[in-house]
């Protein structure tokens, strides 16, 4: 039986919330964990240990229990108004394939695992919010020729991971499959902190040269991958674009609470880390331009943690008397607060200069909240004509769109179209697509 080995190194240190990459690793691993009984392949998990420079088998059930119990403790499903069964049903629906629901053994595993999650919720509430190793490292992984090794995370954090995989693959000959989030750090170095450039670029170089299948998360990233290969004389490996899950919770408006008193009734939301790449300055310029033209724009609520080179934007916003209360920055909003913002804003705006995908756009649409976004890189792939775009370099264009969609009729037209045509991608769909691709490997 062929074996799929999934690397969980990214999940080793977990502080209660998953970052973007961890979310991918967790959700796809979760699918394989729950679906393994119905798969043709054996599924095993592993983590990389710096101590001996080797991969060790890891126990996903431990991670699963802790993450699920934490979710149960902190998210809206812990609402005591919902029955235990309803909570389980809600949580499991996106992850459990139809064929598993039909298998008695699989059903038992799913229900048992989910029950553990809920039972541990109380424990999780009391648990200290510190980083904690989640895997139970044990034996070294003995790679075999027929193995498929799946790297879903960001091995560029530790270059030894790729080196070890390359060396082992040279010796054993297993199939190596890796997700490619983007090549922005290498191809647009001006948009990231320079310390990331070398490890990221070197890791990508080795990943391309040593992988049997690469999985860019957008057509734009696939194009960038080709460009990277061309620039470095690398042979373009086999690639397949996968669409990541962007499903969200729904039908729970009653439980959501406004996360900050400064938020006004009518507001536009911009969600995502505040960093130079996300181009928040364009919104500042658009609002200043609007003031100069005597236009009345709704409040802009910028939600995101403060990242690299974001000081200028924050300083301008916080100290410009003309924009007092017109733009507010919220950098400490939890998941439920974020859901409230998605649900209650007029629409979202996303002016990013470059993306590998553009998760805040997909998330906004998953809440059926209209979005206007920059027409750069992968962003137009998310919803095509269903949303509207502006150049990330034009404050005029951005202002024009901000004004257009203040109009409820315009917005409603778009929102109707969204409701009709936009369907979020579930992690189950992502994982099933991935499984098909793995099955196609020779």
């Amino acid at each position, binding site marked *: 039986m062929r074996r799929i080995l999934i690397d969980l190194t990214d999940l080793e240190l977990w502080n209660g919330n998953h970052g973007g990459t961890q979310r991918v690793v967790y959700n796809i691993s979760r699918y394989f964990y729950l679906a393994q009984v119905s798969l043709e392949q054996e599924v095993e998990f592993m983590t990389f240990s710096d101590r001996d420079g080797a991969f060790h088998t890891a126990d996903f059930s431990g991670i699963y229990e802790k993450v699920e119990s934490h979710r149960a403790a902190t998210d809206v499903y812990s609402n005591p108004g919902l029955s235990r069964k309803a909570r389980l049903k809600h949580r499991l629906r996106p992850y459990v394939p139809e064929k598993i629901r039909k298998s008695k053994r699989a059903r038992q595993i799913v229900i048992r695992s989910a029950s553990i999650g809920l039972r541990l919720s109380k424990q999780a509430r009391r648990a200290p919010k510190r980083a904690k190793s989640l895997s139970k490292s044990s034996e070294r992984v003995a790679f075999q020729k027929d193995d498929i090794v799946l790297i879903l995370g960001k091995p560029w954090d530790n270059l030894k991971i790729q080196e070890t995989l390359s*060396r082992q693959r*040279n010796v054993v000959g297993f199939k190596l499959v890796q997700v490619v989030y983007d090549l922005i750090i*290498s191809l647009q170095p001006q948009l990231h902190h*320079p310390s990331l450039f070398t490890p990221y*670029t070197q890791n990508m170089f080795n990943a391309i040269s*040593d992988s049997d299948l690469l999985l860019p998360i957008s057509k734009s990233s696939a194009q960038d991958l080709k460009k990277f290969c061309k*620039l*470095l*004389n*690398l042979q373009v490996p086999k690639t397949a674009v996968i669409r990541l899950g962007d499903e969200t919770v729904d039908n729970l408006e009653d439980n959501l609470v406004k996360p900050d008193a400064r938020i006004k009734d009518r507001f536009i939301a911009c969600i995502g880390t505040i960093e130079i790449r996300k181009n928040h300055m364009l919104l500042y310029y658009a609002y200043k331009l609007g003031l100069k033209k005597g236009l009345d724009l709704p409040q802009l609520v910028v939600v995101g943690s403060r990242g690299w080179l974001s000081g200028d934007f924050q300083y301008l916003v916080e100290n410009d008397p003309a924009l007092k209360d017109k733009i507010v920055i919220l950098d400490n909003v939890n998941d439920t607060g974020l859901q409230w913002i998605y649900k209650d804003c007029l629409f979202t705006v996303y002016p990013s200069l470059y993306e590998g995908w553009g998760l805040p756009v997909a998330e906004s649409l998953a809440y059926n909240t209209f979005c206007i976004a920059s027409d750069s890189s992968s962003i137009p792939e998310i919803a095509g004509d269903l949303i509207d775009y502006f150049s990330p370099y034009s404050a005029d264009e951005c202002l024009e769109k901000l004004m257009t969609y203040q109009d409820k009729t315009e917005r409603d037209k778009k929102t109707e179209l969204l409701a009709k045509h936009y369907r979020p991608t579930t992690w189950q769909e992502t994982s099933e697509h991935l499984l098909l691709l793995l099955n196609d490997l020779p």
Partner: protein
Amino acid sequence: MVHKKILLLSTYPIKNPRHGGQKRTRAIYEAYKQDFAEVRHSAVFFRGFYHDYGKDDIPLGRTGEQLVMRSPLTGDIVCGEAIYKDPLVNKKMIKLITELNPDIIHIEQPFPYLGLRPLLDELNMKPKLVFGSQNIEAPMKREILESANVPTKDIDTAVHIIAELEHELSKNSDLVVACTELDLNKHTEMGAKKVVLAPNGIAPIKTSQNSRDHWQSQYKRMGVKRIVLFVGSAHPPNWTGFWQMVGKALGFIPADTRIVVAGSISDYFEREIKPEALDIEDATFWLRAFSAGRLSEERLGALIEQSDIMLLPITEGGGSNLKTAEAILADKKVIATSHALRSFEWFKHFPNVWVADNQKDFQKSIDEALEAPFNERTAEQKRLAQQVKWDNCLADMVKVVSRL
């Protein structure tokens, strides 16, 4: 034995030869020593470039050193002029020449003649003059200085000095020794009375088990199975050729293979290619390349012995390439430009040789060579390959000089 005394002059010592010019001069010295009664060599040189030197070698004084540090690429002119202008150098040179009273002075490259000419006039000495021309230097100096973005005015001045010197030497020397047929013809055009061809040669590889073990353990540690070797001195045409033919984007080199850069050119690569520079070629270059650094003869011998392919990506510069001779004698797979095979045109028909004159073809040839089986040379090819040894290459020169 020829009962004549020879003084050999250069702008670099030959005690522990590393670069091509040093190796050639050393070989000439050894060849003369076999046939002549007394042979001495003296280098006027910059200590910043060379640490090993002999008792007759004369380092530049402080003024000369400052001039070289200000303009290292014209250091050879400074060294040549110092023979007359630098009081310390001048004193030592006068002592050497008057003591030896040579019948023949052989200057390797034209530069020493800048100071030697007025000095001989002053001493009223008229030994036979042999001009060892390694290249047609003036146009090559222009290329080197231009590629280093030296101001045009300074380039013109330097090139003018060298061109005039070469013409004078070519015309007035008792013998011109040329490296290639092409250079021989150029010197004849310049008015040379007598020209002899003495192509560059090579000494057989010397190595040791210890050196072999060193590289084997190094490759094992790196997980490397195949070696593509580029040996060169820190001479601008060497790196210019490498960039033109191989390039900085080394993704076409398989993961189990490394381009190993050896010799003083390694200093240049290490200085220029910084992985932390925000450039994807720089960031990834050392993933497929490895700097072996400056090596002892034994280490270099073992490195050559254990390499799979030798690269000769030379696109400019005159003279014949010592590295080409080295590659011929080493009997490895070779990828060369046509330019690198000047004087060794016969070698392109040998097995395991790829000739490529643009980057695409050169890279493709490396790919092909890595996969291709190694083919044995014929008996005749083996005999021909031995011709590249120094004693064969310099035999005619020694014969002609002895008759001067």
